[in-house]
């Protein structure tokens, strides 16, 4: 069903339309909330708040964006404010890791010496679980961006609408997030191997 039709039904008080909205956006909201909030209890409160706010303020939805992006944006900002309140949000400067150059040198050294071994390892040693741990160790905003771009396959514009980050900042954060992830996978391979 088209967004416009769904909103029309919601404004007419059709509760089955709201169930459909939840069904259409639950995956996206879960990606955001799981990446940004660790506590199971806080996740539940946050998600229920997100949908309550979507229900209350559906009149504020503007048709120049997608309904899923609008709900995603409510979810992202709820989590962002939660992290800020809990003082779990890294200041922007800290997101730009000071040890990045050292890490890059180490990673490159390993890559130089391991040649095709590392590729075999990546395939053999359950890449998925290594990656999952790697993503969980990223700063929450980086993990969210990876999830939105690579898991949900959203465009830069859509992610920018959800996070209110300018496209330039968004691309820069994504670049750093991928690099951190690659460093994690490569360095963990070597640690295990030694």
């Amino acid at each position: 069903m088209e967004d416009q039709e769904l909103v029309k039904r919601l404004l007419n008080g059709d509760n089955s339309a709201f169930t459909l909205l939840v069904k259409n956006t639950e995956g996206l909201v879960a990606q955001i909330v799981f990446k940004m909030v660790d506590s199971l209890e806080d996740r539940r409160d946050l998600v229920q708040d997100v949908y309550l706010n979507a229900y209350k303020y559906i009149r504020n939805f503007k048709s120049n964006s997608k309904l899923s992006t609008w709900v995603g944006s409510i979810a992202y900002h709820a989590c962002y404010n939660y992290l800020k309140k809990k003082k779990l949000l890294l200041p922007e400067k800290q997101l730009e890791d000071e040890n990045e150059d050292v890490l890059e040198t180490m990673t490159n050294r390993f890559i130089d010496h391991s040649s095709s071994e590392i590729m075999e390892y990546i395939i053999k040693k359950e890449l998925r679980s290594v990656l999952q741990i790697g993503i969980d160790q990223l700063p929450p905003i980086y993990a969210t961006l990876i999830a939105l771009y690579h898991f949900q396959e959203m465009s830069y514009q859509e992610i920018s609408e959800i996070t209110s980050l300018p496209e330039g900042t968004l691309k820069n954060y994504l670049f750093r997030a991928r690099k951190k992830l690659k460093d994690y996978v490569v360095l963990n391979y070597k640690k295990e191997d030694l």
Partner: protein
Amino acid sequence: MKNSHLLEEEIQAIVFEQKDFSGLNEHVQYCNRCKNSIEAYKLMFKDLEDFPQPMFDFHVQAPVKMYSQKIIRNHFHFPIFLTALLGFLGLSFGVISYLSNNKSVKLESTWLSTWLVICTGGILLTVLVIDVVISYEKKIKALNRIFMQH
């Protein structure tokens, strides 16, 4: 051909932006480090969309359902309240005037009853029409605000 190693930005651009850098590609063919870096990214992010999707193990809509039920319960609709009040008053006057007519109290009750019925009916109809028009306009306004923005 580029002699120094590719920058991390260049490697990611080749993998994720599908950009073609002819000069860089030539270097990649002969350089193990850059080739492996590109392969590592490709392998890591390949099939990432097939990762298990996180799911909520609780009812996300519970507060919404409670909220919507509360709205229905607390919904005080003034025109309908007014209609009911006027209807009640009209009916009471009608009954009183009928009874007083029966008891031969000297009150022009037949005349009073007729006018009470006409006035009450007229007022009720007006109130209902106003209510329908107001709620229709509200709905149209809300829909216009949402769909006519470009």
